[in-house]
Each structure stands twice: as structure tokens, then as C-alpha cells.
């Protein structure tokens, strides 16, 4: 239904313009990737961009890696349809960066080399911890990848007006092929430049839209909110928490679910492997700190603008027009672009704005999936191949070769999974990726950096314990089976879960596992530690002294 409407609404001029803009982005990024590949000679170049990016460059790249389509299109859509509740996401996603800044970024830069596993395995027996770090890196990245790639497939049909199954599959394959190319050829250097370009494009697009929306409302925020509330048909409730999360009907379960989501958002970021490896791309811990501070400014400004985008879409486009294109609201921002573009510059202006924002959305997805592929292939090559299989004795050239092959394989697997996952309801995968990162990775990282007694058994228990708890609880949660959406107009029931109607084996009441699985991750890490007598005093001293002073840290490569 929505696809049919979209197809009729997209003009061929806009289609051509969107394609042209997006293809020029692709052309520029391909050129940069080629150039970066010439400067990529050593393993440090491939994995960490030679550690030669400045704090500002890496700060912008952090923004590029982090601001996914889920935050751009997703949050704007949630605000446009459910009002205030979308803002909860923005706040959790931003505050999370303080965990990364205060507790993780610098210490990680000082003590690690290429992957999250470097820090976790630093003072442990290598093989069990490397294997665990590899598993959780791949699980988190694949969940996130599938969510983004399925989103890309859905987006193309809405933005380009091609609704066929083939078009979606072709889009997923094309996005996958580009991301593989970026990572295999450009490594971290190429990927970082792509993140920087994408972040600049996204900030430009969001700023432009925000200015145009605010201009429409005479820079009066209260007016914007008032009009949005009126157009939403929900009145004042639209401007308060509770329309989407923890609704009155959900009672206590809903409120616990809200806390559970909030915890995963705020604690997950500092455990996302593709974010953690960004800290290795700068020469010093001081630069890592600077880059996170820059990242916080960029990401914070962006999330503030999501308010204008979401409420602007509610006020100027209206919920009927938005849900007619996409019931989840993911096209609210592009639709808003057409609307304000047309109001400010006339119909042609609307077409241009829509084409620009649509290509920014594609660039956003492309950059994030490239970051994820790089993180997981680095972990396969460095943690699993070099340190688990070869016990740290693999020749360096071989390791980078394996990293490139892994990027290819992981990309291919992600393409195939995404094509299958298209027909399923996979919106929960982003929240699940954050929950796993918070439950498995964060406890292991914090214990490693701050608890002297922590040991191999603790690290392995924290990672597998947190991972299995988070994934296990979600399998038996309503988002996998049992969640039903009732159309308020017709009373028709559809499945809002991974499985269709009629399949229901859920017993865990919440959509989000964090409130249980995060404490479990920390608990297992503690339990594993105290049950084992292992304690490597020398390595523990080395890690602590090194993490706080940077003594013996990996240097930037000189070309």
C-alpha cells in the first residue's frame, strides 16, 4: 500500500536528481578510497589509519560512524509520529558519550593496538579472551549491519519510488558491494575520510532543514510545538512523554521497558566495537580525548536538530501523509525536506531539497555499514586469526590479507542475511546491538581497566554471560514472538514481532533486555573472577601504568 503511494508521488525529475547526487557521492568516495589505498602499507595503516588523524578529524568521523540512519530518519520519524518520546532516544544516545569520554577512550588508546580484544586480552590468557571478544564483536556488528541494510532496501523504494522486490534486493547488494569495496581497498584510512564526508553532509542537511523549519515558524519554538501538537491530532499529549514508550495502557511493564531501553542506550555506546576502534586512529590519548569532545559537540548539535526535524515534519507534513508513505515514519525527514523546500523556494526547491536529503540518507547508511564491516573484519583477522589461531605468531602481511578477506566474507554474509531479513520485522536489532554492547562488552572493558583482580575467567564469563543473557532474553521477548499491533481504525491485527501472528513463545515481558542483562554481565564478570585464582600481577601493572600514562603505547606511523 505504502509503496504504491510512494511510487506515484515520486516524480521522475526528483528520482534522477537523487540518483545523480548519490552517484556523485559514490564517485567521490571511490576516488578517496583509491587514494587512501595507496597510503595504506602497514597493518597500522589498514586497521588504524596509521594513527595519524587529528582530534578534530577523528571527532567528525566519530559523528559519521555514530549518527546512523536509525538516528537521522528513525528519531525524526518517531518524533513526527509519537512526539516527545523520540527525544528520549536522542538524549540517551548523547549522554552515552560521557561514558566513552570519562572512562574508556583515552585508556583504550593508550593500551590497545587495533581492536577491542587488544584491551580485553591485555593481561589475560590470550586465546579464550580473544575468541570471546571476536564473537561479541561479530554479533554486535552483524545485528547492527542487518538493521541498516534492510533499512537501505526499504528506503530506496520510498525515496526513488521503485517498489519491486528486485529493486530492494539490488539496493541491498549495491550497498553491500560498495561497503565491501570501501573496507577492503581503503581500510581505516579510506573509511575515516568517508565518515568525515558523510558527517559533514548530514550536518549540512540537518542544519539546512532546521533553519528552514524555524524560519517557517518565525524562530518561535513554542509555535512549532503548538502547530505540531495540533496537526498530530493528539493535542498536548504529543508534547509529553508516554505516547510510544511506557504508555498508560502498558502500565508497569512499559515503564520498566523504558528504563531498560534507557540503560542500553547510555551504556551501550562505549561498548560498540566500531566506535571503540576509532580511538586508535589518533596519535595520542590527548588527541583521543579531543576527538570525543568534538564528537560530543557534533552529535549533540545533531540530536538537538532532530527536534526541529521531527516536530517540523509533524507540523508541516502531518501524520497522515507520513504514515501513507511509511507506517514507521522513516520518511518523515525527506518528506519534510520536500515540504519546506517547496514553501521557501517553490516546487523545484522542494524537489532539490528532497533529492539532497535522500542522498544524505543513503550516504549515512553507507558510511555506518562500512564502519561496522571494518570493525568486525579487524576483529576476525586480529583477534581470531592472528591471536587465537596463530597465537600471535602470524606474519603481519598475512593478517591484513585475512582482514580483507574477512571484510569480503562478512559483507557477503550481511547481504544474504539482509535479503532474507527484509520481510521480517527487524527494527529491534539496533536496540539489541546496544544491549549486547552494554551487557557483554562494557563490563569486560571496565573491569579490565579498573579492577586489578579481574582475570581470564572473569572476562570470558562477562562477555559470554552478558551476550547470552541479552540475546536469550530477546529471543523470549515480545519483539521476537507475540507482539501484536492492532489497527485502531479497523481493529485488524498484524504481527509487530519477528514471527508472524499465531507464533508466540515469549515469557520475558519486556522488549528490551538491558535492565536484566546488563547487571547479569557485570555479575558474571565478578563471579568468574572470584572463582578463578589466576592473577597476573606484572601484566596488571603494565596495563594500569600504560593506560594512564601512555608509556609504550602504539605510535603513529610516519610516511
Amino acid at each position, binding site marked *: 500500500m505504502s509503496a504504491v503511494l510512494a511510487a506515484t508521488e515520486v516524480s521522475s525529475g526528483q528520482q534522477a536528481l537523487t540518483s545523480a547526487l548519490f552517484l556523485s557521492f559514490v564517485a567521490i568516495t571511490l576516488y578517496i578510497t583509491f587514494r587512501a589505498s595507496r597510503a595504506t602499507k602497514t597493518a597500522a595503516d589498514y586497521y588504524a589509519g596509521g594513527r595519524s588523524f587529528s582530534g578534530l578529524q577523528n571527532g567528525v568521523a566519530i559523528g559519521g560512524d555514530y549518527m546512523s540512519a536509525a538516528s537521522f530518519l528513525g528519531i525524526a520519524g518517531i518524533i513526527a509520529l509519537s512526539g516527545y518520546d523520540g527525544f528520549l532516544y536522542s*538524549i540517551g544516545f548523547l549522554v552515552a558519550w*560521557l561514558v566513552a569520554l570519562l572512562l574508556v577512550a583515552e585508556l583504550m588508546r593508550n593500551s590497545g593496538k587495533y581492536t577491542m580484544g587488544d584491551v580485553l586480552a591485555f593481561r589475560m590468557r590470550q586465546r579464550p579472551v580473544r575468541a570471546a571478544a571476536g564473537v561479541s564483536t561479530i554479533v554486535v556488528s552483524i545485528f547492527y549491519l542487518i538493521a541498516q541494510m534492510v533499512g537501505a532496501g526499504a528506503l530506496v523504494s520510498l525515496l526513488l519510488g521503485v517498489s519491486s522486490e528486485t529493486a530492494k534486493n539490488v539496493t541491498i547488494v549495491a550497498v553491500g558491494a560498495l561497503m565491501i569495496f570501501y573496507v577492503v581497498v581503503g581500510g581505516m584510512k579510506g573509511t575515516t575520510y568517508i565518515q568525515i564526508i558523510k558527517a559533514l553532509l548530514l550536518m549540512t542537511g540537518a542544519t539546512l532543514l532546521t533553519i528552514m523549519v524555524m524560519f517557517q515558524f518565525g524562530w518561535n519554538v513554542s509555535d512549532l510545538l503548538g502547530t505540531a501538537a495540533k496537526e498530530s491530532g493528539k493535542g498536548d499529549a504529543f508534547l509529553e512523554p508516554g505516547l510510544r514508550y511506557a504508555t498508560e495502557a502498558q502500565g508497569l511493564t512499559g515503564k520498566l521497558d523504558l528504563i531498560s531501553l534507557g540503560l542500553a542506550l547510555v551504556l551501550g555506546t562505549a561498548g560498540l566495537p566500531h566506535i571503540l576502534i576509532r580511538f586508535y586512529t589518533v596519535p595520542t590519548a590527548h588527541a583521543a580525548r579531543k576527538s570525543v*569532545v568534538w564528537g560530543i559537540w557534533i552529535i549533540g548539535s545533531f540530536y538537538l536538530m532532530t527536534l526541529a526535524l521531527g516536530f517540523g515534519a509533524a507540523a508541516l507534513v502531518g501524520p497522515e501523509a507520513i504514515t501513507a508513505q511509511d507506517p514507521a515514519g522513516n520518511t518523515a525527514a525527506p518528506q519534510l525536506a520536500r515540504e519546506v523546500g517547496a514553501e521557501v523556494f517553490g516546487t523545484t526547491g522542494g524537489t532539490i531539497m528532497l533529492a539532497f536529503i535522500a542522498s544524505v540518507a543513503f550516504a549515512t547508511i553507507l558510511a555506518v555499514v562500512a564502519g561496522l564491516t571494518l570493525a568486525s573484519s579487524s576483529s576476525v583477522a586480529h583477534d581470531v586469526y592472528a591471536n587465537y589461531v596463530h597465537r600471535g605468531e602470524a606474519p603481519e602481511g598475512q593478517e591484513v590479507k585475512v582482514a580483507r578477506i574477512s571484510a569480503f566474507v562478512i559483507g557477503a554474509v550481511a547481504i544474504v542475511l539482509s535479503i532474507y531479513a527484509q520481510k521480517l520485522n527487524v527494527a529491534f536489532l539496533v536496540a539489541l546491538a546496544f544491549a549486547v554492547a552494554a551487557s557483554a562488552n562494557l563490563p569486560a572493558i571496565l573491569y579490565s581497566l579498573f579492577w586489578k583482580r579481574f582475570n581470564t575467567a572473569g572476562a570470558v564469563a562477562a562477555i559470554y554471560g552478558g551476550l547470552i543473557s541479552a540475546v536469550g532474553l530477546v529471543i523470549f521477548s515480545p519483539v521476537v514472538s507475540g507482539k501484536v499491533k492492532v489497527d485502531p481504525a479497523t481493529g485488524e491485527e498484524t504481527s509487530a514481532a519477528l514471527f508472524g501472528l499465531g507464533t508466540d513463545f515469549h515469557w520475558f515481558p519486556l522488549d528490551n533486555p538491558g535492565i536484566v542483562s546488563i547487571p547479569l554481565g557485570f555479575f558474571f564478570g565478578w563471579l568468574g573472577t572470584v572463582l578463578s585464582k589466576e592473577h597476573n600481577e606484572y601484566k596488571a601493572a603494565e596495563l594500569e601504568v600504560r593506560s594512564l600514562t601512555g608509556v609504550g603505547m602504539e605510535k603513529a606511523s610516519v610516511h
Partner: protein
Amino acid sequence: MSDIRQDSDRLVAMQNSPEFARLRKAYRGFAFPMTAVFLSWYLLYVLASGWARDFMGTELWGNINVAYVFGLLQFVSTFLIAWLYERHMEKKVDPLAARIRDELEGGVSVR
């Protein structure tokens, strides 16, 4: 660099030295309490969004209610804490860390 790695006893001695204790305290003394502060502040916001709906819905200026102001204050506090942390590290922690690093690396400063 490699003899630093082999010289584990020196690192253990450094870890137990009063000057390293000062460095550790300078870093943790800021980072740990501040983490407790911003996490509690954030949790308070989430709890209020779930349980204090009437309070959050109180209108302050026109259509702007407590929920927006509370939310915007989360942005302000995040920017502020990031800035305070950076300033604290540059003034109180970096000099201590640099001195210890120089000492361990034989006076050659790392650039």
C-alpha cells in the same frame, strides 16, 4: 620500548609508587564521581519520563513544558561535563602522566 616491557618489576614498583597513586587519584577522583553524577542525573530524567508525567507536562513558556527543559538540561550538562573533564585532565592529570612516562622512558618524551 621493548626493555620497558621486559622490565616488569619497574612497572610494578611504579604502580605502587606514591607518584603513580597521585596520578590515579587525580584521574579517578574526577572521573568516578562525575560518572555517578551524570548517570544518576540521566536516570532521574528517564524515571521522571516514566513516573512523573504530570510534572513533566507542566507548561512553562507557551507550549514548552518541563519535559523539554529537563531534556535540554541533559544536553547542557553533557556539554558542560565534557568541557570540565577536558580542563581537569589538561591541568591536573596530563602533567603527572607526562612526568611518569618520561621517567619510565628514560627522559625521552613521547610525541
